[in-house]
């Protein structure tokens, strides 16, 4: 096998020095009756060229070359090429968690920079080295609030990503944490009155997302005020990181749970992505995940190490703040490089282009169909309601190698024929115009059909 650095002579020599007659001696501890006496039934050993060909085939079956209007927690942004040039360096790619600081300063310093930039962007005081993704980060943030407040019930906005809500309920269910959902109003923002009504002295935290699942920016101040007034914490989830370039971060939040995929991470059919938790210094000891801190070596030289490990499973075992061990380090490095490339000025300009494309698209759609939730500011997503089933319209749009917006029926039946459209800097005016054209056509045909019926009726 071409990955194995041994000749049969090497193997012989080693067995000899071990004093084993054959390799089977070394597997003797396994009860004979369980030892596999046959080949595994998996495909035969393939040449590298065959492997590449096989996956190329899969890639072709997978919508290679389509434009997309999908967002909903996974965003198609441009990835500067140096991200892959740098993360492909074996020193980053093939290193483990930086347990041995003296030969891991590269990874450690880059995480320290990552933590710093996440703080700058979120307005928080401390950020961890990464969580699995935005959904698990949100769930862990809520658990964190539960530990910090000593309270057990949790309120979740219905405008939070439906899958994030599912994950939270999976995590909470078996710990018997009562969850309640807060509806949204007709501008898609959290219903403050409903919140006031549902919040109790037992409420550990309120979880919202901003920009929320519909792309609408929540009134974080108002929500924070209600939460804090009731001694509950405010946990804010951010799924579209690019929004932070031009949307004020939820500074009033106690914990922010972020999905940083937008920052240079490929869509990759849903993963690997990069969750992050950021919070206030005073809450750091209840924070899950790894943390890198600055320190000095024997000669007073600056260096970085993993720190506050007493929160973690390998020290605290069942008393740990979380069971997380392996995180998303390499993806956090992609995010770090992306933030470094765009930086203070570029990130704002990038966000501004997203805003411009989305504004144009919403206007165009608005001329032919109903754009919902226009009452509040949004970032790069918006909801369009059509007369015809959006799946039907999308299949016509797909004919142009364009993937239309996400039909919301599945998650929000009450919204009927609504779908969620997303525009980024990658969305071209021409694909917007094409999609709008097909939606307009659909509306016209439905209308004329209705008229015909009326005709007949008369």
């Amino acid at each position, binding site marked *: 096998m071409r990955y194995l650095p041994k000749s049969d002579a*090497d*193997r012989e020599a080693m067995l000899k*020095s*071990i004093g084993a007659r054959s390799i089977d001696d070394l*597997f003797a501890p396994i*009860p004979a009756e*369980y*030892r*596999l006496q046959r080949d595994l039934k998996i495909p035969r050993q393939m040449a*590298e060229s*065959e*492997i590449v060909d*096989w*996956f190329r085939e899969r890639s072709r*079956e*997978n*919508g290679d070359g389509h434009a997309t209007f999908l967002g909903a927690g*996974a965003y*198609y942004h441009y990835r500067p090429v140096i991200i892959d040039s*740098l993360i492909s*360096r074996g*020193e980053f790619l093939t*290193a*483990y*968690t930086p347990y*041995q600081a003296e*030969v891991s*300063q*590269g990874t450690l*310093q880059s995480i*320290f920079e990552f*933590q*710093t930039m996440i703080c700058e962007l979120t307005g928080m005081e401390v*950020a961890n080295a990464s969580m699995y993704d935005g959904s*698990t980060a949100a769930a862990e943030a809520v658990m964190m609030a539960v530990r910090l407040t000593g309270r057990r019930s949790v309120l979740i906005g219905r405008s939070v990503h439906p899958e994030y809500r599912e*994950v939270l309920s*999976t995590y909470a269910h*078996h710990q*018997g944490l009562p969850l309640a959902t807060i509806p949204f109003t007709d501008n898609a923002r959290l219903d403050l009155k409903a919140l006031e009504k549902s919040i109790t002295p037992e409420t550990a935290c309120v979880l919202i997302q901003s920009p929320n699942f519909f792309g609408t920016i929540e009134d974080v101040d108002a929500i924070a005020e209600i939460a804090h007034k009731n001694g509950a914490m405010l946990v804010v989830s951010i799924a579209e990181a690019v929004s932070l*370039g*031009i949307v*004020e971060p939820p500074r009033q939040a106690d914990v922010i749970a972020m999905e940083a995929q937008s920052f240079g991470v*490929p869509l990759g059919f849903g993963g*690997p*992505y990069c969750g992050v938790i950021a919070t206030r210094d005073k809450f750091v000891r209840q924070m899950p995940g790894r943390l890198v801190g600055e320190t000095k070596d024997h*000669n007073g030289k*600056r260096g970085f190490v993993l720190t506050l490990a007493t929160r973690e*499973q390998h020290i605290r*075992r069942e008393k740990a703040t979380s*069971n*997380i061990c*392996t*995180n998303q380090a*390499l993806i956090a490095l992609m995010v770090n490089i992306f933030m*470094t490339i765009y930086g*203070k*000025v570029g990130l704002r300009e990038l966000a*501004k282009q997203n805003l411009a494309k989305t504004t144009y698209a919403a206007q165009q759609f608005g001329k032919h169909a109903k754009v919902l939730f226009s009452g509040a*500011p949004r970032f790069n997503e918006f909801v369009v309601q059509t007369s015809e089933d959006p799946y039907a319209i999308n299949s016509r749009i797909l004919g142009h190698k364009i993937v239309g917006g996400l039909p919301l029926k599945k998650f929000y039946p009450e919204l009927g024929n609504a779908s969620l459209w997303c525009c980024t800097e990658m969305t071209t*005016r021409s694909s917007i115009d094409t999609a709008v054209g097909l939606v307009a056509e659909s509306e016209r045909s439905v209308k004329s059909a209705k008229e015909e019926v009326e005709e007949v009726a008369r």
Partner: protein
Amino acid sequence: MKHMTRKATRHISQNEGLIFEKSSPGKAAWRLPPLDVPEVDAASLLGASERKDLGNLPEVSEIEIIRHFTRLSTWNYAIDLGMYPLGSCTMKYNPRVNEVVARLDGLANAHPYQPEKISQGAMRIMQSLSDCLLEITGMDAITLQPAAGAHGELTGLLMVRAYHESKGSPRKKILIPDSAHGTNPATAAMVGYAVENLKSNSAGMVDVAALESQMNEDVAALMLTNPNTLGVFEQEIHKIADIMHAKGGLLYMDGANMNALVGKVRPGDFGVDLMHLNLHKTFSTPHGGGGPGSGPVAIKKILEPFLPTPVVITKSDGTLAFEYNRPQTVGRVRGFYGNFGMFVRALAYILANGPDGLRQTTEDAVLNANYIRKGLEGVYDLPYSTPSMHEVVFSDKIQAKKGVKTMDLAKRLIDYGFHPYTTAFPLIVPGALMIEPTESESKEEMDLFIESMKSIAEEVEEDPQMVLDAPHNTRVSRLDEVLAARKPVLRWKPSTAEPVK
């Protein structure tokens, strides 16, 4: 240092400050295409929500970024540079073809919500990988959704809980051997179970008698790592399974050490009810400085109803689809479908190996561990003489007499050009040196490792202080972890900015 190593030398290495220390207004590494739609006024669109300032994000040029991260990278040790014998971590070669196929446009740019009609390739990859992993583990069904091993444990115990609930009661406890990895008890707690410790016997294996007595109807499951963290195969595994099953309990296997078993024996055949795999260990996906991973959970039929949603199914027309409607599911444990990019890599690894390659891989991994054991036996204390599979655990007992601990030996090993082994784990071995070479090490590299470890042992006798002061050949000397924890500095601040050292 009279002992010189044949493994490494010292060479010039570039210094580099924090990126913030290189920033200055007006530098930029980005450029956007001209806008093809009308400009907008953010203030009027966003009102109070408009952000005016991005704080201390850096402003630097592209070459500075290339140099920054290139320089940083050269401060790391990595598998690509040499042996990385971290016990329990399975630091094997990460094939480059895996990286190439994972970046194919149709896979790297696929949106998780794109229509199934244009997602057949991705689902086919998920199904093929699932089939291979089921054959390898001898289990009946699998979920690829968990993002890492610990996440797999969580998913597994959620299914255990749902299973028992379906039988009337979730039960109260999880039994966990004292040799177990920290994620095991931490996971049990997250799922609302009490953890009950299980003593190991003198051979480092589960004390079957103790298990017998501790097992009862309150116990939901036993979380067993096999081979365990001593690298020892639980020879009485069948008895263990019987004891659990007799009282209606389940046997969960932590598959982190599957690299000792692939192609040689299948957990499904020796009574395991469910287990997780670490694709980032056994199946060669890169660790990337700490992640990402992927922790699929393979299960027996009885647990299938409880799988997280969605599950990939084959429709009557032969096309693949995601099934969401599964009434008894434990629910989602992650957004979308898991770390798909890792599925691609793991499958590429399996295809590159085939049945013969995987078996040879396992044999070489076990051969390497035993070669090192043989080479260092006597020089370092071997607390358990039980046969080793893929890793071997020594202790610092002999060297501790001179005041030199496992961590000190580890730091000195750095001077010899190696990444250290895992220190101070498993907990049942005081001052453990946990060594897992994996199959990726050549005889030459391991001979250098053995030679170095022996040389260090001599140094401990001759000049313990020098070893205590190690490392001596790195760009930073030993770093003060106590200071870091006492007053944590977890982010750069303009005020605390230091000049480039």
